[in-house]
């Protein structure tokens, strides 16, 4: 076991973990943050996407200890002051979630995309989420939601 200290959604946590523990399991099982979903476990589906410092990563392929001293952002950290993030609002508005399983990863990737490219084209949205799988095959509405967020919230 080793001591792991990191910041998740602005809160510092310190836990004893095994080095082999994956970040997704640390978030869900140790911290109880079950918003991030554990999907394919092979870095294909992207349901487990969280931000590590400033970039989205697939947390089933990152060891928790690799996040030591870093900042993690999960879907639980998106809403602010009781207000949903515009991307979350857009997913609700445009039916961007069906079963909801891929949603946390899709939303975190979309947030990153809009932070870097406030007015993406449809092709850019599709490219951004190309490493993520919606098992309902609801990509159409996911893409619409991201574009809606860009147009209606200035991407912010």
């Amino acid at each position, binding site marked *: 076991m080793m001591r792991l200290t990191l910041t998740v959604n602005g809160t510092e946590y310190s836990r004893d973990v095994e080095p*082999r523990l994956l970040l997704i399991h640390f978030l869900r099982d140790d911290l109880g943050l079950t918003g991030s979903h554990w999907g394919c476990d092979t870095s294909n589906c992207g349901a487990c996407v969280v931000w590590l410092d400033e970039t989205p990563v697939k947390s089933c*392929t*990152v060891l928790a200890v*690799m996040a030591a001293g870093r900042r993690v952002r999960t879907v639980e950290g998106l809403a602010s002051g009781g207000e949903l993030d515009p991307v979350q609002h857009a997913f609700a508005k445009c039916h961007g979630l069906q079963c909801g399983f891929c949603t946390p990863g899709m939303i975190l990737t979309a947030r990153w995309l809009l932070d870097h490219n406030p007015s993406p084209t449809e092709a850019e949205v599709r490219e951004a989420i190309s490493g993520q799988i919606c098992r309902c095959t609801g990509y159409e509405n996911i893409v619409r939601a991201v574009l809606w967020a860009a147009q209606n919230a200035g991407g912010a």
Partner: protein
Amino acid sequence: MAQQAEEDATVQVPAHVEYDKAISVEHALTLLARYGPGARILAGGHSLIPMMKLRLAQPEVLIDINGLTDLCYINLTGDQLRIGTLTRHAQLLASPLVVEHFAILHDAERVIADPIVRNWGTVGGSLCQADPSEDLSAAFAAMKGTMVIRGPRGTREVSAREFHTGPYETVVAPAELLTEIRLPVRPGGGSGYQKVARRAGDWPVGAAGAAVWLAGDVIADAGIGLAAVGAMHFVAAEAEEYLRGRAATEESLLRAGEIAASSCHPVSDQRGPADYKRHLASELTTRVLRIALARARGQDRRERA
């Protein structure tokens, strides 16, 4: 125990492993020496961690080098592009220097894994994983790059074409660390890369990269890299030899493709039959040679794979 066994059957997690964090290249080398051959360098981990889950890799100790930001760079030094091995794929893709001098790397990075994996996966990690289908290995071989390896007895340089000793095997010894890739910037050059994959983000069924250096309308030199089709050291050496000193005509490019296909040894697997992969080796070689030639002539012609 029964519950534990049930869990083990459904959960993919790495086996028990020790972990240490390197704070400098020297420290990484010290740790490698201390822990011996049972240690593995952990960079992005996007190849190693999946292999550990499947028990295809079972290191005793992981030496995490993600803190070595001094291995994260892309710069032009004299007539060489130098790439630190902890550079993330996304950084290579976004580099204006790469677009300007090595379009082949930009082309390749656009189709390596997916945008999220590229955020954390590293250039050095991909090379050292040495998967026979790995795109950058083919691209660096085509560009005739040099690998810089540091070890307990100092620094050595190895040609990208001698870096891989077989599937998942490289010349990097257990006590050594790949720290830099150097690519020569030569006048009159152009390059490109194309891959055919079954779906976005997948490993290639077949892929080819090419570089040409022109002297007037003659191909002064050429580099051809192939991935996933069983090309020795990722290189189509006979096709390169054929092109050297030859007029840059469509006929030459078609013939070079045929030679590249005949010199590789693809195997049938779930991604496709060997004869299809051989066809891809020929067709993709010719296509990337056309692109490289157009770029060398200052015409940025792009084709769909």
